[in-house]
Structures are given as C-alpha cells and as structure tokens.
C-alpha cells in the first residue's frame, strides 16, 4: 500500500465513510431528541437498535426484500417503545431502570430469536445488502460527488430528517405540545394537552428511528448480524443528544464527529498504518466523554425529563 494519505481519493474515501458510518447514530440521535424533548429518557435505545438489527436482517433473509426488513425493524422498534411507554409513562416508573430493562430484554430477545432462526452455522448467513445510490449528474462532480452523492438511500433520508425533525419540533403545533410536555407537563395538562399520549407518541417515533438505525447496520453497513453489531452506538446517540443540547442539527454534527473518528481508524488500518488498533477504537468513546464535559455545564435539559406525570400528584 502507498503511504500517500493526503491524496484526494483517500480524503474523499474517509469523508464518504464518515457520512455512511454516522447514519445510524444520526438516526438514533434524532429519535432520542424527539423522545427526550417530550420528557422521557429512553435508555432502551441500545437494545431496540439491536432488535431492529436482528429483526430487519431476519426479515430480509427470509424474503429477500430489503425495504420489508427496514419496515419490520421500524415496527419492532415501535412495539418495544410502547412497552417502554407503558412502564415509564403509563405507570410512571423510573425511566432509568425501565430503559435498562428494555435494553436487557430486547438484546436478549434479539439474540434468542436470531439463534433460534438460523442455528449456529460455522459461517453466519448473509444478505445482499443495500447498494449506494449514485445521484445522476451530482455524483459526477469530482471529489464532492464521491463524498456526498454516492450514499445509501437511507443516508439521504436521514439527512432529510434533520430539517424535518427541526421543523416538527420548533415550527408545528404538535412540536410545541411535545416541548411543553417535556418542559412542564402540568402546564400542558392545564391547557388540555394529553401528556401521556404525547409522550407515548414521541416514544413511538423514537422507537421507529432506533429500529431503522439498527437495520441500517445489518442491511447496509454490514450484510450479517453479529452480537456486537450495535456496539454502544445507542449510548453514543444518548451522549450526542446531550452534546447537541437537544437540537437536531447539533446532535447530528456530533454524530458525524463520532462517525469521522470511526472511519478514520478503519481507513488507517486498511492502508496498513501500524497503530495499536484498540487505542484507536477507544478514541471515539473517549472524545465523546470529553465533548460531554465541554458542554454539560451549559446544557439546558428539558425540565420535565425523568419526571413521570401523575395528575393527582401535582402538590409540590
């Protein structure tokens, strides 16, 4: 391999990989932002993503239909989010513990179903994954075309979701309700907003995003299901939600930073740079902690986050 790292091809390769690898984290971050803006921290994210990865993969493996896989992953995400909603919203239980319960349950169930469906063959089964979609004309632009316009359709959809989620949260009536419910559920209730229904709705959208983010990992990023396929990306999305101060654009920029570090270490390995792999794998996580330290004192947490809403308990 050449040692010419600064070549345009190498740089466009890294940047293109950055956008690819940050897609699932962006999608999960957007989902978590909507959920938390509504006042619920969903720590079920990691498990829901793994379940989306497994259910999407198995659906596609059985039917050969990639989009059906994505659809099933979204439905499974919603179903698990509804379980979260029952525990943390309807019953008003600890959001931390409910979410961890969902993650442990969904991760276990994902692996259970996968193992039951495929057994334990020597070589794990694979699907024919999504292929990148070259946008006519734009993909021919030198350098820029290689970076931005030869991505997966799911990646383009994720980019489109950034302004859509922003507009939804900050420019629509429902978005205003969501934020009020997350900020001051008592006030929201007073003016006739159904607090628990709104929260359940946010959780459902978030769950669908988490499921699809998981499916992206097994149907586009890779073409098989591995137990550690999610590998903490859900937790990264939780971190990016805080890092982005609950704003879709900033959160996604954070996700991109993580994707860049991820892509960089992978590329440097491929070109044969002798670096301790594991120290490099550690950097994105370390940088995420450092980034959190940088922003946390200024963070404006939705005031109703973590607080269950029980009308009878207004009292204090």
């Amino acid at each position: 391999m050449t040692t010419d790292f600064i070549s345009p091809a190498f740089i466009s390769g890294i940047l293109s990989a950055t956008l690819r690898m940050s897609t699932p984290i962006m999608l999960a971050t957007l989902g978590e932002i909507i959920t938390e803006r509504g006042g619920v921290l969903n720590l079920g994210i990691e498990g829901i993503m793994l379940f989306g990865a497994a259910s999407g993969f198995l659906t596609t493996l059985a039917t050969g239909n990639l989009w059906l896989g994505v659809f099933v992953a979204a439905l499974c995400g919603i179903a698990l989010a509804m379980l979260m909603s029952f525990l943390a919203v309807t019953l008003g239980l600890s959001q931390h513990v409910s979410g961890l319960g969902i993650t442990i349950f969904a991760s276990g169930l994902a692996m259970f179903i996968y193992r039951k469906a495929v057994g334990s063959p020597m070589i794990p089964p694979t699907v024919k994954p999504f292929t990148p979609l070259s946008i006519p004309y734009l993909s021919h632009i030198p350098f820029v075309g290689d970076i931005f316009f030869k991505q997966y359709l799911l990646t383009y959809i994720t980019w489109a979701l950034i302004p859509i989620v922003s507009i939804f949260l900050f420019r629509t009536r429902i978005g205003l309700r969501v934020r009020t419910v997350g900020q001051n559920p008592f006030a929201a209730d007073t003016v006739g907003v159904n607090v628990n229904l709104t929260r359940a709705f946010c959780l459902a959208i978030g769950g669908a995003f988490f499921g699809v983010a998981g499916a992206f990992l097994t149907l586009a990023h890779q073409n098989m299901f591995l137990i550690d396929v999610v590998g903490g990306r859900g937790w990264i999305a939780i971190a990016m939600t805080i890092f982005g101060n609950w704003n879709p654009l900033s959160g996604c920029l954070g996700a991109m930073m993580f994707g860049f570090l991820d892509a960089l270490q992978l590329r440097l390995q491929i070109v044969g740079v002798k670096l301790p792999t594991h120290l490099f794998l550690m950097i994105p996580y370390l940088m995420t902690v450092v980034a959190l330290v940088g922003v946390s004192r200024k963070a404006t947490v939705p005031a109703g986050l973590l607080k269950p809403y029980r009308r009878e308990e207004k009292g204090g």
Partner: protein
Amino acid sequence: MIGLSIVKRKPLPTRFKVILPVAAIVVTILIGSIPILLAGGNLLKAYSSLLHGALGTRFNFLETLVKASPLILTGLSVSFAFRARFWNIGAEGQLFAGAIVATAVGVYGTWLPPALVLPACVVLGFLAGGIWAAIPAFLKTKLKVDDVVTTLLMNYIMIHIMGFLLYGPMQAAGSSWPRSEPIMEAAHYPTLLAHTRLHVGLVFAIVLALAIWFINTRTVLGYSAKCVGTNIQAAYFNGINTDMTILKTALISGGLAGLAGVGEVCAIHYHLLMDISPGYGYTGIVIAMLGNLHPIGVVLSAFFFSCIAIGSQTMSRMTGIPVYIEGVIEGIALMVMLVALLFMEYRIRWTRK
C-alpha cells in the same frame, strides 16, 4: 375504553418487601415461558432441565455457587450506587479495571513477598474499580456531566484499554491469542473444597454484603447516601456534603465491581482474557433491583440469576432453547420487579371512560 390511573395507597406492611420479589420471580417465570413455548420448547422439560442444570448434581450446584460470587459483587456494586441515585451502569468496566490490575500484580509482582501478593491483588483491584467509578462521579458533581452516559461510555473505553493491553504489552509471549501470562500461584484464591472450583470468593462476597449492610444502616456514609438518594436538595440544606457522599459511594461501588474482576482472574481463569465477563456488570443492575437494593436481597437474587445462568446452559443442551433465554429472563425480571415495587406505594385503579 378502559383507562387506568395510579393512586397512592397506604404503605404495605414490611413483609411485602420479601413477598414482592418472590412474586416478581413467579411472574417472571410465567412470562419467560412465552418465548420458550414460541421456540417450540416443552415447558416442563425446559424448566426441569434448568433446575437440574443449576442444582441437580453436586457439581452443578457448586458451579452455581461459583458463578454467584461475581454476581453478588456486581449486584452489591450497583445497589450501593443506586441507593444514592448515582446511576452507575459501569460495573462492567470497573470489573475489567479490577481484573487488569489483579493480573498485573499476579504476573509482574514477583518481587513482592508471596504472602502479600494476593492482598495486593485484592486491594489494588478494589482501588482500580473504585477510581474508574470515581471519575464519572467527579464529572457529575463538579461539572454536571450525566453519570448514566459517562459510566456507560467508560465501559467501552475500558474494554479497548484491555484489548490494547492483551494484544500488546500484556500479551503472553508466543501467544497469538489475546491472553496474558498466567498469574503466579501466590495470587490464587484458596479453594473452599478440594478438587472443586469453589473458592473463598463466595465467602468474601457474602462478608462484603454484610459489610455493606453495616455501612447502610450503621454509618454516617450510609445515612448520607440514603438522604442524597431520596432528596439531594434536602440533604444538601441539612448540611450533608453531597458531593463527597457521591464520590465515596462511587469509590465503594466501583471497588466492589473491581473485586468481581479480581475474583474472576485469581480464582477462575488465572490469567486475563477478553471474555473475562459475560456481562456480570449489566446483570448486576437486574440483581440489585430484584434484591430491592438491600445487600441480603442482592445475595439471594444473585443466587437466583446464577441458577438461571448455569441452568439455561443445560436447558439449551437438552431442549435446543438458545442460551440467550438468560438475557430475556433478566430483562423481564427487571421490568416485573419495577412494576412490583410500584405496588408498595401505589395501586392501580381501572376506570371506564
């Protein structure tokens, strides 16, 4: 349409603190039957093979006890932190920290007097886990960084530190596998029964559970931690040093998880390897909750999950139900127990709309 609302009830008598976890286990086993049935398993055969696998023979029973020691420790670790509302989800990473340091002492501490090797493993392993947990506690108290996220992320950082060490400086000479040199014999935990794997770690863990019970009920730290967990502002205005309380809690919590790692190295594997823990740190969360954050409850619930872990292997061999049923049952147990705890203070009223 039928809706439900949650209303306060008169607190249940104390005996429900014992009845509820038992009821939660029963409900968990009932719900856990659904995936077993759907996977085409015969319930009677599945649960009897699970029970046999966990407790049926002397060997199996001893294996269950062996597995219980790290689970008691991670369960204690999580319960001690949660009691002060320090959300330590990082027991897994703290366990690795303890395991790494114990290995380092056991492999490179040849200059130590042999009698000091094992104590050094234990003390330094405790400190390693404790310091690893104290970092997020420091970030939480001084810089307002969310403890859930940092403790979680630090698990991954520690996994990669361990990977770096096992593929690099600590890798055994001539080995192509990520494993360390074996630790010296002076670093081994003594066994309780000759020719078995049952080691003093179990007794050690139970003694530590009693020590935690003592700290919780008889010391200033235990009282302060309880106050911080119940209402941190009230604690602060009553003159409790809340930052220091959280920091000390984290140190002890992480230390306990570190000791779980020490035990796995010094009593089970005798060297460090990547899969030193099949998620003991995460199971610790479930154990802590099912044990109602009480040290004695933790010991009992650790034993229960040890039975599930060991028994599900036999169940898998006998009935073809994937071993991952263990995780499914853990998740169900955590959620069921959470609902059960609600009933301590509230009741559900069904309303017809």
